[in-house]
């Protein structure tokens, strides 16, 4: 519900309520006053009649413009509303009737004086129409006014909202919000602009930090690697030193890979891969499997694929590559010789299954998505592969599931688009 609709609703409710009460009071007040007037006239006529009867001993000849009836039967002395037949129009019409006792020639008679309420009725109807008309006009104009307000006054707010929903911090943009006469909106726009400036600056400095950190670590790694490589070239290097240096070299390599993986993860988390192109996973998988052919053959893996042409996904090419490579490398690396590698692509998901190490009942497969979790703690791999898969998948809003079928020791990774 729009804010304006909500406030409108309350306005209309309150206005209707007040108007109804006011109308009722006015209506009944006017009716009461009119009826009072009629009754006063009836009492005046009664007093006149009594006076005349006392003075002359009989009723005056001319009846009043209303009606007068004499009755010998005792009647209750009250004021009441009655309907009497109007002989001219042959209709029943409302009258106010006053009945009182009168001593006439020593006899007790009951006189009923009636006075038409038809004028009162007209006034009542007029009031009804007037009130309805005014109330209706008021409500309709209120709704119209609010509509107009919504269009004109709230327009800057709507524009702000539009810009906000299109805001993307990855483009370092600062919100350019239009000026407005309305103080609250102007303040809102100013605050948002400042906020976006801060966010853009923070984002830039975060990115810079990540890059600087990467740079600062990469340089010493490069030095270590280069020096070790030079050391290995020395002709005088004692034979036992070779493997020692080689181990060091391998360790530096591991560190470099680890660093690479962590940098990639932090970049994904900082959403630094905004660009996306249509990627056909079918092509990418085919290409990667071809590159990995030798490793699949070396392990004598049974490769089962189902790679139908599916719709392209909007992905960053490097992330798509990393996702597919990590999944396949993982499935080959942890496979045992002669095992199974199954790659199934559908429009909805990519499933990669491989036979592999038996998991203990205490090992929850989901924990392999955590950083540095490995089947085999002494393995050379940095244990970031599945974290990267997970990071990329969540970046694109895909769900990843790790399923383990104990009877065949079959590990299945399912990426659901």
């Amino acid at each position, binding site marked *: 519900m729009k804010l304006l609709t909500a406030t409108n609703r309350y306005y209309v409710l309150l206005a209707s309520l007040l108007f109804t009460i006011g109308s009722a009071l006015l209506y009944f007040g006017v009716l009461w006053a009119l009826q009072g007037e009629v009754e006063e006239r009836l009492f005046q006529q009664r007093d006149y009649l009594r006076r005349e009867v006392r003075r002359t001993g009989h009723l005056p000849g001319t009846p009043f413009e209303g009606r007068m009836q004499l009755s010998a039967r005792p009647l209750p002395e009250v004021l009441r509303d009655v309907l009497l037949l109007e002989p001219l129009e042959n209709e029943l019409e409302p009258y106010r009737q006053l009945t009182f006792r009168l001593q006439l020639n020593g006899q007790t008679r009951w006189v009923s004086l009636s006075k038409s309420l038809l004028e009162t009725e007209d006034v009542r109807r007029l009031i009804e129409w007037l009130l309805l008309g005014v109330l209706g006009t008021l409500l309709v104009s209120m709704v119209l006014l609010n509509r107009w307000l919504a269009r004109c006054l709230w327009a800057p707010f709507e524009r702000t909202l539009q810009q906000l929903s299109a805001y993307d911090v990855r483009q370092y943009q600062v919100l350019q919000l239009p000026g407005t006469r309305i103080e609250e909106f102007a303040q809102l726009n100013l605050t948002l602009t400042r906020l976006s400036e801060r966010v853009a600056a923070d984002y830039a400095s975060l990115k810079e930090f990540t890059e600087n950190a990467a*740079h600062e670590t*990469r340089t010493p*790694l490069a030095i270590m690697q*280069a020096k070790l490589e030079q050391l290995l070239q020395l002709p005088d290097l004692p034979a036992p030193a070779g*493997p020692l240096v080689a181990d060091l*070299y391998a360790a530096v390599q591991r560190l470099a890979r680890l660093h690479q993986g962590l940098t990639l993860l932090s970049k994904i988390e900082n959403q630094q891969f905004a660009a996306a192109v249509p990627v056909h996973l079918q092509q990418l998988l085919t290409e990667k499997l071809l590159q990995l052919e*030798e490793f699949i053959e*070396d392990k004598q893996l049974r490769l089962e694929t189902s790679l139908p042409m599916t719709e392209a996904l909007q992905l960053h090419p490097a992330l798509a590559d990393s996702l597919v490579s990590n999944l396949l*490398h993982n499935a080959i*690396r942890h496979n045992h010789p002669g095992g199974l590698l199954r790659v199934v692509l559908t429009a909805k998901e990519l499933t990669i299954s491989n036979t592999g190490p038996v998991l203990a009942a205490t090992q929850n497969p989901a924990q392999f998505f955590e950083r540095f979790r490995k089947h085999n703690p002494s393995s050379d791999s940095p244990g970031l592969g599945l974290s990267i898969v997970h990071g990329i998948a969540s970046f694109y809003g895909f769900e990843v599931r790790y399923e383990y079928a104990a009877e065949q020791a079959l590990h299945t990774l399912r990426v659901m688009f």
Partner: protein
Amino acid sequence: MGGWAGHQKVFRFAAYFASYILSRPPVKLLIVEDEPALRSSLVEYLRQDGYVVEVAVSYGEAHEKIKLYRYDCVLLDLTLPDGNGLDVLRTLKADNSPAGVLIISARGALDDKVLGLELGADDYLAKPFHLSELSARLKAIIRRRQFQGQRQLLFQELTVFPDQAQVLVHGAPVVLTRKEYDLLLYLLTHPGRVLTKESIAEHVWGDAADAADSFDFLYTHLKNLRRKLQDKGAADYIRSVYGVGYKFSAE
């Protein structure tokens, strides 16, 4: 130390000798790198490869040198204390310099790589890198620029035509798989050097080598390559260096 200096001398002599045989001036390189330790390694390794190497430690110096002298190839670090290495590349391209450019960057950001190659760099290598990989890429750049498909690599009875991916032993062609050929070419471009298993695997297989849980596959492929060469009557030049890797050597 005396042994080392002597060894260096042999290398240099070999390099000059080679350049003399091929009757062409030595290839002149400019290394733009602000990190002294890394710079010294690069200089030493590349001098041993027979290049004439000059260095620039800052953007200012690099800019001055490329304006004053001509180089065959520039090794360019992007993050310099007083400027961006990409500007050196821009200057080179603006001057229509024939120099090849190999970017060695620590930033590793994809944008840098894309931008560098778009600006006209020949290749891009992220730190940390294998010196042997750097040297292989450098050779590839120079080969592409100077010989335009005329080049052949000679090693004893072996002849390799890199542009046709053809290998001859005593003039007779040998049929190799793509990977075996890549292996041979990598070994052949580093005669006498110890090549680590990591650098060979990375050069030939790239990231795909991650799928293997050991370097055993390397052994299998080298064994096949050896066998194919020997079947054609070549001597065995692929020496295994215990615990480290391999070396291509006639000794």
